[in-house]
């Protein structure tokens, strides 16, 4: 889901930088108010976890690869705004140091993976968890469903960003200037891969870690309640 340089035209790249600037500013403001000093190591672990889990490329035999993002788990532990900051740090380092995701696409990639994914995941988790006790199975299932929906909505939006390019930018003869695939192809490819394979990795890591923390240290699972706004 890391859109490289050259796939998005200037309109789309610029648009998402403009959209992300106030989100980053607002995230800093909220996190400043809500993050506790003792949660700082967890923020660093969250960013590190997101970075390393994205290195686990999962294959579709003979096809493409994809990976989990870990953003829903970070949102469950720290709240969606802190998750936005943690995943942004991971994405910026991936782009600058490893060429994973374009420099021009940092706005769009952060919108998809550091904003849409943790926010959708977080609110699905909260709604499905309801008032269930912190160590209930319902919370594990809620975390799994939240992870699946979060990553798939992000993939859908990435697909739309890719697919809009041939409509926005093409030569007089109809050749695309940036991503050459239209909406139908791009959305189908992005969604099918994540619905069938990669989304399940996000489900697995999210649900397993929530289950582990329920047994080990449930306080971490309620530490962020009230961090959402």
């Amino acid at each position, binding site marked *: *889901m890391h*859109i*490289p*340089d*050259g*796939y998005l035209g200037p309109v789309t790249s610029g648009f998402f930088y403009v959209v992300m600037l106030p989100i980053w500013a607002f995230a800093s403001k909220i*996190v*400043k108010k809500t993050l506790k*000093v003792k*949660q*700082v*190591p*967890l*923020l*660093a*672990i969250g*960013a*590190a*976890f997101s*970075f*390393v*889990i994205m*290195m*686990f*490329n*999962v*294959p579709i*035999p*003979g096809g*493409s*690869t*994809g*990976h989990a993002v870990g953003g829903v788990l970070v949102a469950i532990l720290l709240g969606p705004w802190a998750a936005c*900051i*943690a995943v942004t*740090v991971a994405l910026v*380092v991936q*782009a*600058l*140091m*490893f*060429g*994973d995701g374009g*420099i*021009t696409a940092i706005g769009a990639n952060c919108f998809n993976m550091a904003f849409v994914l943790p926010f959708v995941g977080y609110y699905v988790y909260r709604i499905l968890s309801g008032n269930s006790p912190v160590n209930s199975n319902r919370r594990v299932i809620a975390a799994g469903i939240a992870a699946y929906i979060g990553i798939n909505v992000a993939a859908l939006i*990435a697909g739309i960003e890719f697919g809009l390019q041939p409509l926005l*930018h093409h*030569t007089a003869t109809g*050749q*695309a*200037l*940036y*991503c*050459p*695939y239209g909406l139908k192809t*791009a959305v189908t490819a992005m969604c099918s891969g994540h619905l069938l394979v990669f989304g399940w990795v996000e489900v697995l890591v999210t649900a397993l870690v929530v289950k582990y*923390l329920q047994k*080990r*240290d449930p306080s*971490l699972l309620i530490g962020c309640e009230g961090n959402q706004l």
Partner: protein
Amino acid sequence: MKTITKLWIGIIILIIITPLGLLLPAHFKAGSAWGEWGADEVGKVVGYVPQGLEKLSELWKAPFPDYAFKGWEEKGIMHLSLAYIFSAIVGICVIVALAWFIGKLLTKKE
């Protein structure tokens, strides 16, 4: 042991097994992620290289492209796995330092 310490150990274990993210796709003959192909790969499939894509795709020269070292593209999977682990370590050191700094900055009491 504190839970946070356990979580750090979890991260270290993940770093050590990151080469799975190279070996599994290689074993199942899977290519890049959708939409993350290089310009020449797009040219082969689509029949032409979109002009803007060609121009922008070389915009940034990352120090460790694709979590490897420059010139190691032709080396075997063993070398690439080592470079992958090295990249994970370097990346995580930078990320932890950055996130820690941001966290400290935001939790500083005025």
